[in-house]
């Protein structure tokens, strides 16, 4: 029986962490993720969980300590946002290359500058090539559900990679909404105990982690890491299938909302997908064939699956909540169009930048984008291929 509750996205993730009860959580506070370690440490103080909480002096240290704990044989995690993730940069790559299945709950906030505390995806996108699995959530429910699925994905023998579970700062992290929670026992059974085969604190079975690698080995090691990331795709789907049996809530690499017969599809990630779905419903009532493809798993990037999902539409709007500063669009825009080209899906693809540093994205913004796509396809209107939404 699902427990009907209402809570913020941060509360939901902290609740999931309590249920999973990992072994070690080193953390350093940064807005808007601060509440997560704060709530977890309250749970610990109240005796509701027995995770070893390590207050550290920086995010460089929190990620280092999480890697150390994981290598030692513990299930570890940390939480951060924005500049905190940037300070972890070196360690993020080490967590992945040393094949540590630890978790990070990222509450997406823009990277400076200008300095700003609000949501965009520049922090997560900045870490997109660090070798982590990245999963994005639309709302508090998905943030909760994704965290519960995190360790079963990361710890699978085919994967052994770190996983970043992301949600939009303030928009979902601080918004109280309805949620359905699972019973503690169900979550514990689903996630299980962490029983690594090889770890540092294992008497009689010594190992060395993170050795120097000469060129003769390093390239092969990177290829193996890439294979593990590719493997994670099937594991993510298997875990989602099991989770569906448990919760009734299904997940894929992405969600296709009313795209079956859609001429125009909007592809985006995070909380704005809900707003876009609302726009789709309103436009469908007027007979417009529109849909939303909400990307859930950004790493590994499901290029082939996206190309397959888009091949029958006339145009796609790719919405990036991040500026890439490459002069050619955002990260999603670049990767989706590259995927379309590789799999020979030659449709109109317009890249929009929206919601930077907390700029709002409304139902009417989404409607406007769909109308522009239609105008381009039906009336031959020339549309700027890379543009900003709500730019003054």
């Amino acid at each position, binding site marked *: 029986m699902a427990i009907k509750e*209402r809570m913020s996205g941060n509360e939901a993730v902290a609740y999931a962490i309590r249920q999973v009860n990992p072994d070690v959580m080193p953390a350093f506070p940064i807005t*808007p993720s601060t509440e997560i370690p704060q709530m977890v440490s309250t749970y610990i103080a109240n005796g509701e969980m027995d995770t070893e909480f390590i207050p550290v002096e920086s995010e460089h240290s929190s990620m280092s300590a999480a890697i150390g704990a994981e290598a030692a044989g513990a299930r570890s995690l940390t939480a951060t946002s924005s500049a905190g993730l940037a300070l972890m940069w070196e360690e993020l790559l080490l967590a992945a290359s040393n094949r540590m299945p630890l978790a990070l709950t990222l509450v997406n906030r823009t990277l400076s500058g200008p300095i700003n*505390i*609000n949501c965009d995806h520049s922090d997560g996108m900045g870490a997109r090539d660090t070798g982590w699995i990245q999963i994005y959530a*639309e*709302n508090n429910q998905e943030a909760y559900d994704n965290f519960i699925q995190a360790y079963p994905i990361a710890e699978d023998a085919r994967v052994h990679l770190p996983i970043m579970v992301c949600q*939009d700062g*303030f*928009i*979902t992290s*601080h*918004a*109280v*909404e*309805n949620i359905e929670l699972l019973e503690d026992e169900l979550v514990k059974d689903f996630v299980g105990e962490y029983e690594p085969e090889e770890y540092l604190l294992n008497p009689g079975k010594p190992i060395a982690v993170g050795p120097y690698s000469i060129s003769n080995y390093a390239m092969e090691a990177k290829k193996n890491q890439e294979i593990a990331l590719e493997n994670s795709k099937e594991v993510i789907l298997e875990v989602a299938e099991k989770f569906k049996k448990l919760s009734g809530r299904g997940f894929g690499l992405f969600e296709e909302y009313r795209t079956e017969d859609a001429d125009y599809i909007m592809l985006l990630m995070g*909380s*704005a997908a*809900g*707003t876009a*779905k*609302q726009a789709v419903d309103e436009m469908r009532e007027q007979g417009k064939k529109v849909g939303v493809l909400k990307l859930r798993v950004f790493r590994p990037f499901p290029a082939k699956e996206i190309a397959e999902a888009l091949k029958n539409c006339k145009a796609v709007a790719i919405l990036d909540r991040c500026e890439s500063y490459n002069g050619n669009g955002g990260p999603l825009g670049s990767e989706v169009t590259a995927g379309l080209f590789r799999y020979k899906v030659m449709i109109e693809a317009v890249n929009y930048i929206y919601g930077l540093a*907390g700029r*709002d*994205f*409304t*139902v009417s913004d989404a409607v406007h984008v769909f109308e522009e796509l239609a105008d381009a396809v039906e009336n031959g209107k020339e549309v700027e291929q890379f543009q900003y939404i709500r730019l003054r």
Partner: protein
Amino acid sequence: MKNGIEIRWHGRGGQGAKTAALLLADVAFKTGQNVQGFPEYGPERMGAPITAYNRISSDKIRVHSNIYHPDYVVVVDETLLASVDVTAGLKKTGAIIINTPKSKEEVMDELGGYEGRVYTVDARKISVETLGKNFPNSPMLAAAVAVSDIMPRDKFIHEMRASYEHKFAKKPEVIDGNMKALERAYDVVEEAIEEYNQMSA
């Protein structure tokens, strides 16, 4: 949103407008509704104007934007009337509720020609008399519930008592004061609503 209501709160940092919005989401949730309560964040400074929002609906709520065409606006601090366009986008069929000792006729000039209903509540006075301190958010929460008619008075009072008993488990002496503040504010507004209904009947 097709079904349901949208509320916008205006307050100053530290006055509890955000808490009131979250409490409203809380009590509406207990009536089986889908809810959303969220603040608009910036640098957190005591006294700076802040905005918070509520969506309450029988349908699942998916929109994650701010609210531009609210059904109701609650102004927790009347000094904001001079600096913030509190009636921006407010539906004519809706209402604005303002914390002020003034009558509605006295504040009309500051509402940019708003044509909908206007209610005033002296939340400061109610708070000081019932709690001994100026915590305007509890009375304003009651006023918002009365005007928006989210739930019946007795259900609201019942849920709020349960909520306070949980929240103030370690200082039960403040529960009665808070309950009185809620009831008084609710009744003041309910009286004004009845007056309005009689006039328009």
